[in-house]
């Protein structure tokens, strides 16, 4: 047993695997519980909105997925920086593992937004700043994943994708402001914030919080599971190489 424990000790793949193995089933179960409770509560036990009718209920999917789409990229940025600075393999693999989850969240947010926009705005798609920004974020995810897929050597791939992630983050923020400059939109302002007075009624707010918690847990569980898979794949590859050498 190590005497000095720090956060960085989890960068050891063996320790990471040992810690996450018992953790993963609990996290997954908790994520499933939150999602089931939150979605059923939201879909069946909240009243219809007086203006939007039952279409308002799509926020239980739309808001959490949109939130996680951005946070997943942010997590990839942090993981990429940790890889570039401290060169912990688990960090690079976690960034790789998060990308497909993030792109799925982005797609869910875009599709649920379109489904909601069709009856409410009368159009599936509008070149609104927020919508456009999400589409651009989607393209950033695609480029990032394509770069991972294109490079054979895993360390080179980790380095180059990390650099792309850092530069891409700057340009993603820049695009957000540029798009704002380019077109004023239809999309309502932020509905949730910690400091301002909330403008979502409590009946919708609490199930929404449960759904957000569910999506966060789902994201963490998926990324952990995918990182474990990546570590196993890496070990398998190393074993196969050793076998071929012998």
């Amino acid at each position, binding site marked *: 047993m190590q005497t000095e424990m720090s956060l960085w000790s989890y960068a050891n793949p063996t320790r990471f695997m040992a810690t996450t193995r018992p953790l993963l089933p609990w996290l997954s179960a908790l994520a499933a519980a939150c999602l089931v409770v939150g979605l059923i509560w939201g879909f069946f036990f909240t009243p219809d909105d007086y203006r939007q009718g039952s279409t308002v209920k799509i926020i239980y999917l739309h808001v959490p997925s949109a939130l996680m789409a951005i946070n997943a990229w942010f997590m990839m940025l942090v993981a990429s920086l940790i890889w570039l600075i401290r060169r912990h393999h688990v960090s690079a693999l976690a960034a790789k593992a998060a990308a497909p989850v993030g792109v799925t969240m982005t797609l869910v947010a875009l599709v649920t937004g379109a489904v909601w926009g069709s009856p409410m705005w009368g159009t599936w798609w509008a070149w609104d700043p927020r919508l456009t920004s999400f589409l*651009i974020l989607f*393209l*950033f995810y*695609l*480029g990032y994943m*394509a*770069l991972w897929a*294109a*490079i054979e050597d895993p360390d*080179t791939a980790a*380095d*180059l994708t990390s*650099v*792309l992630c*850092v*530069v*891409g983050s*700057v*340009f993603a923020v*820049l*695009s957000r*402001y*540029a*798009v704002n*400059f*380019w077109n004023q939109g239809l999309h309502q302002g932020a509905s949730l914030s910690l400091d301002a007075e909330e403008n979502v009624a409590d009946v919708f707010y609490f199930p929404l919080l449960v759904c957000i918690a569910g999506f966060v847990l789902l994201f963490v569980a998926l990324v952990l599971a995918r990182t474990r898979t990546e570590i196993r794949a890496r070990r398998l590859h190393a074993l196969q190489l050793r076998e071929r050498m012998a």
Partner: protein
Amino acid sequence: MIRILSRDVALAVRAGGGFGLSLAFFLIVVVLVPFGVGPETAVLAPIAPGILWLGALLACLLSLDRVFALDREDGALDLLATAPVPLEGVALAKAGAHWLTTGLPLSLAAPFLAVLLGLPAPGHLWLAVSLLVGTPALSLIGTFGAALTVGLKRGGLLLSLLVLPLYVPTLIFGADVARRGAEGLALGPPLALLGAVTAGCVALLPFATAAALRVSLR
């Protein structure tokens, strides 16, 4: 750095360097647009700034995969990496050479192509100005993308996928300057923002490009 720059420019301008290709591509894109949307000036004039910016952007993209690939094939890139000039300087010189052989001629040719699309006369100057200010950013971003994909076998298509999302801010501000210029509106803010994007790219991207090159050369 100056030597690398003049060497790259010379290589591009001489026979087989493909100097005229970007310009020809730009011309063809602009000529094809009326076939797609119809020849009426009422249709063409409002979209002319956007079309010209898009055409210039795609023409810039065409020559990007050659920025580092040829030097890598003949080993010159390894020599440049061990040269007394820091790799950041090499990256900046490469981007400068790319701009001198694509961005600059494209900017100068754009007003003539604008005539073809029926852009109102006051817009010509501002179109050229917006391209002159914006295309260095395109070259710098493109050089970064080229550094990321230099070691790859099928880097060309991937390069477009990586670079095009990064072009979004430049395109938005650049096309906005050109559009406002044509309509005679105030264009200070977008022009300033376009300049800011270019200045930021000049200041920061050579470091990212050099970092990517070091990984690729390892």
